[in-house]
């Protein structure tokens, strides 16, 4: 049986905003840049963050490519306008094309091309972060992070992640609580890396099912067999989800390196983030 993932929206929103505020205070930065794809994740990120940074200190970048629909851009604009934040529309297709022209490879597959797009957006976000002395807000949710459904150093590149403790269905619930337009909540999630791509279509399982499998495996510590037998999940779905989690571990961690000395960074040399 499927369950609805629990979420106390009010208190969780307060906790997330408290986290953002603490990080800002520690590194002494007042501004943030967020990419607005028009999807639920970046929208909820912006809705949560705007209260902490203030509308004048949050910059939204709308960065369409040929893989995006007009509706994506419209929804990005809608978010910027609803929140009354500063925004810029920067089409990235020319940059992607220029990269492809100069990269020295004739045929580029759609995944590699999609990753170029995601990384172009990352470059733009950090460019504006440099200009404005701002942090880049990561928008990935817990479901995407666990499945590895993001581009390493693309949309995976950020300073802090706002939604990373919420599963996709919880992000939607949070969106509804925060007053996100229904059209954005109801839209099928997409990575926007090629035309017609939808996350559920590509993975072949609905987010409702994926979240149920993940929630039982991770939060409730069910074994895979128990998720199949006791929750009635499809064995091939569980297998697929497990494989995606395992294969993407490298994307969720900082790069490994050999521990040679007594006090290696992050192994034995361990400090909180700060800037004096």
């Amino acid at each position, binding site marked *: 049986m499927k369950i609805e993932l629990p979420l106390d929206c009010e*208190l969780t929103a*307060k906790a997330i905003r*408290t986290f953002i505020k603490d990080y800002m205070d520690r590194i002494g930065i007042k501004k943030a840049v967020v990419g607005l794809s028009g999807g639920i994740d970046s929208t909820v990120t912006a809705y949560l963050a705007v209260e902490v940074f203030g509308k004048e200190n949050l910059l939204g970048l709308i960065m369409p490519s040929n893989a995006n629909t007009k509706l994506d851009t419209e929804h990005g604009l809608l978010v910027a306008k609803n929140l009354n934040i500063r925004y810029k529309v920067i089409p990235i297709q020319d940059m992607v094309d220029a990269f492809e022209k100069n990269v020295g490879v004739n045929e580029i597959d759609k995944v590699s091309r999609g990753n170029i797009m995601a990384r172009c957006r990352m470059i733009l976000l950090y460019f504006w972060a440099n200009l404005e002395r701002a942090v880049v807000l990561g928008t990935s949710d817990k479901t995407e992070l666990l499945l590895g459904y993001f581009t390493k150093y693309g949309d995976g590149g950020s300073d802090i992640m706002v939604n990373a403790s919420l599963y996709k269905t919880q992000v939607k619930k949070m969106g509804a609580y925060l007053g996100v337009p229904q059209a954005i909540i109801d839209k099928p999630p997409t990575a926007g890396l090629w035309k017609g791509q939808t996350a559920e279509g590509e993975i072949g399982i609905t987010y409702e099912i994926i979240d149920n499998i993940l929630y039982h495996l991770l939060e409730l510590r069910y074994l895979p067999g128990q998720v199949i037998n006791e929750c009635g999940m499809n064995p091939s779905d569980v297998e697929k989800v497990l494989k995606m989690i395992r294969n993407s571990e490298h994307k969720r961690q900082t790069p490994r390196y050999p521990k040679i000395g007594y006090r290696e960074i992050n192994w034995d*040399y361990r400090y*909180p983030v700060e800037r004096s």
Partner: protein
Amino acid sequence: MTRLKIGLAQIAPKLGAVKQNLDKHLEIIENAKNQKVDLLIFPELSLCGYYAKDMYYEILPKVKNAIDTICKNCGNLTIILGIIEENKRIRGVLHNSAVVIENGKVVGTTQKVYLPDYGMFEDMKYFKPGNKIKVFKTRKCILGIAICEDFWHPEVVHAIALKGAEIAVLISASPFMSREIGEMLNKIRAIENTIFIAYVNNAGAQEGIVFWGGSEIVSPNGNVLVKANYVEEDFKVCEIDLNDIPRVRAGMPILRDARKAILEELLKAHGELNED
């Protein structure tokens, strides 16, 4: 006098910023003096922050100096706060401790006995556990102190009660996900020992850990007498009547009925565990 005023100083310490945290302590101490508070309680590691990692070693001298300053400013207050403490015999060995301050000097310290090392917790990585359950006869009451993980283990507060304390002071850096259980435990510990619980949690966020706040005083029969806000800083003052203790114990003689023979069964069971 059987009545006393307790102040719950639910602060959000800044990691490693002892001076800044000390200033906040002093400010609240003045406020508490104005409100004629008798017993003022700050949360776990209130002078240096909870998740300071390798900073602990470097800020130890600053914490020692800050304690001296608080002693000089304590007035008629009994003050409890969370500190890192160097082992009295072995230099360079740290404890996660609470200090009791009164009449311008340190009355005593108590060391956290259960140091969590599971999941996100790293107490055992930095601290040496204490082995003693102490009670302190202060100006207005007899109290014992448990630090965070200590009150997830029933024997700590039980020992505090059997040693004659009227108030079990619980100080913590309890993260967001533990709120519901934490609130249950406060009530349970109060009832199973028919003792006042004065609980003070951290607020704010440190390194992504959000503390749920929600500090409270629970009466010996499990009623919440005062409650601080969730997540954010708060300061609550509440007057309690220590005569409630015999009144409740007359009807719920749980401590009267506590039996050594049964506790010895517990010890025996532990012995058997260790034989395996």
